[in-house]
């Protein structure tokens, strides 16, 4: 069984993780941890292996080597279903929404694991299954208010502009009430104002709900502002790990990452 992790203790520990696709070594012996309650940034140039790292954490990719310890449970790899049931939610670099569904339905899908009425009840739909749906609607409305997307509640998400799609994706992840939230470039392609909004949401989620966040982001100023600790990857290797101040003073990072134009 997973154990209770207090704020400041290690929530997730990756040890010596290596992942390759055929000949491509995407991650090479990388290890780092994420502590409960922190905002942990993962940065690095294009192709550094950041997204692959998130995919390892939520079980989309199974590393050939290394271990993942989440909430005290030691594993060779995660499975997406287990990750979700254990409180890991995520967003995707290239928005992955259910395009045919409304904003509301997309966010409601985040409640999947919180709903318990079984198959038969749902067939009948009315009665308890219906009541359960209503309770979850309420929680979802909170998320909608928080992210200020009430006006697009009924809009099919495929029709929304990119910035709003990203926000709906965040809403879906928040609806899961996760313990660990993985964000893959949540501000990519956004204008300044949208970025500021998104930064504010991330900080509030972290502050008010104590949600632990792993954040991949290319915008260095955003990363420096938001994160408690930063791990830097380059060509699949970890080249630095520390506070924003430590990392920005690191010569390897300056050479490999900050020197590279984006």
């Amino acid at each position: 069984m997973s154990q209770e992790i207090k704020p400041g203790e290690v929530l997730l520990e990756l040890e010596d993780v290596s992942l390759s696709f055929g000949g491509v070594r995407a991650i090479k012996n990388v290890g780092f941890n994420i502590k409960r309650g922190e905002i942990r940034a993962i940065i690095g140039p294009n192709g550094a292996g950041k997204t692959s790292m998130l995919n390892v954490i939520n079980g989309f990719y199974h590393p050939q080597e290394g271990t993942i310890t989440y909430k005290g449970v030691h594993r060779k790899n995660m499975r997406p279903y287990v990750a979700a049931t254990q409180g890991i939610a995520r967003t995707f670099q290239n928005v992955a929404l259910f395009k045919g569904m409304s904003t509301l339905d997309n966010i409601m899908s985040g409640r999947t694991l919180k709903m318990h009425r079984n198959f038969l009840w749902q067939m009948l739909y009315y009665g308890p299954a219906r009541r359960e749906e209503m309770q979850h609607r309420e929680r979802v409305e909170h998320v909608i208010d928080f992210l200020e997307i009430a006006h697009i509640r009924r809009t099919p998400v495929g029709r929304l502009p990119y910035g709003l799609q990203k926000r709906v994706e965040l809403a879906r992840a928040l609806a899961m009430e996760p313990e660990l939230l993985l964000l893959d470039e949540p501000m990519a392609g956004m204008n300044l104002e949208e970025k500021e909004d998104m930064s504010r949401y991330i900080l509030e989620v972290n502050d008010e709900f104590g949600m632990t966040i792993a954040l991949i982001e290319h915008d260095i100023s955003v990363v420096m502002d938001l994160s408690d600790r930063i791990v830097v990857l380059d060509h699949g290797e970890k080249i630095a790990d520390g506070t924003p101040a430590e990392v920005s003073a690191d010569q390897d990072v300056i050479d490999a990452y900050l020197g590279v134009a984006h």
Partner: protein
Amino acid sequence: METLYNIFIDPFVQMFGAPDFLMQVLWEGFVSGTLYALIALGFVLIFKASGVFNFAQGIMVVFAALTLVGLYSLGMPAYVALVLTIGVMGLLAVSVERLVMRKLVNQPDIILFMATIGLTYFLIGLGEFIFGGEPKKMIADELGLPGGSMDFEVFGGVLILENRDIAAAVIAAVLVAALWFFFSKTRIGRALRAVADDHQAALSVGISLNQIWAIVWFAAGIVALATGILWGAKSEVSFALQVVALKALPVLILGGFTSIPGAIVGGMIIGLGEKLFEIYWGGLMGGGVESWFAYVIALIFLLFRPQGLFGEKIIERI
């Protein structure tokens, strides 16, 4: 001139000259239409959830009907046999999910399609082994499907509705409506649409692909059983019955492979269209129109609207 008259004017003159007969034709088209819609739904559900064109849908119809008749012949009451057959279809769904889908997840769609062909031959073999190859009689009376017919006075003529056709249309319509409701209004339905839209995102919110697949295969199994009973009652239960499932293909091309309303509307268009065409234009072409009409309509659709009436995207997956 005369040909043009025969094609464009005469059929309508006939239709409006004898509206009671037109009603009869429309009714018969409607009955087939509901059954086509039902069969097409079986395909749509599985296609939506997994992107797989289930070649085995036809043999599932035969297998379900054979199981029902076979269980009944062991001496149990018809309704008990029916419930047990539903159980068998559930077992089949779970087995297919465990032994086929789960093993082949992440393989290209064509591999999964091939797997359903494999499944088809497996079920043919299993069916023949257990039940033998000779045709059997559907236990329609035993299941309480009514016989006889009802006459109605319309437009100064008589409209004859076979009670069994009425029952078939009602059962098919209720089943179609129930499936539509289930998959569009409930949480499982939302999960199914989520899986259809984006596998990875669905996984990330904790939707279990395995569970969804088992459910859609079970739904397809129920549809197959209903088709087997209703169609079997019209003719007989034999392996030839699997060709009725072929009729679903033009329906799907019309309605789109991913659309539940599409399956319903497509089924109606084909059902009504082929009956009308057979009766009023068939003579011009020497009859036998029903066997090819649906495919020609489908072909025309493929040329002009390959995504179907309601389909979301071009079918590139089969």
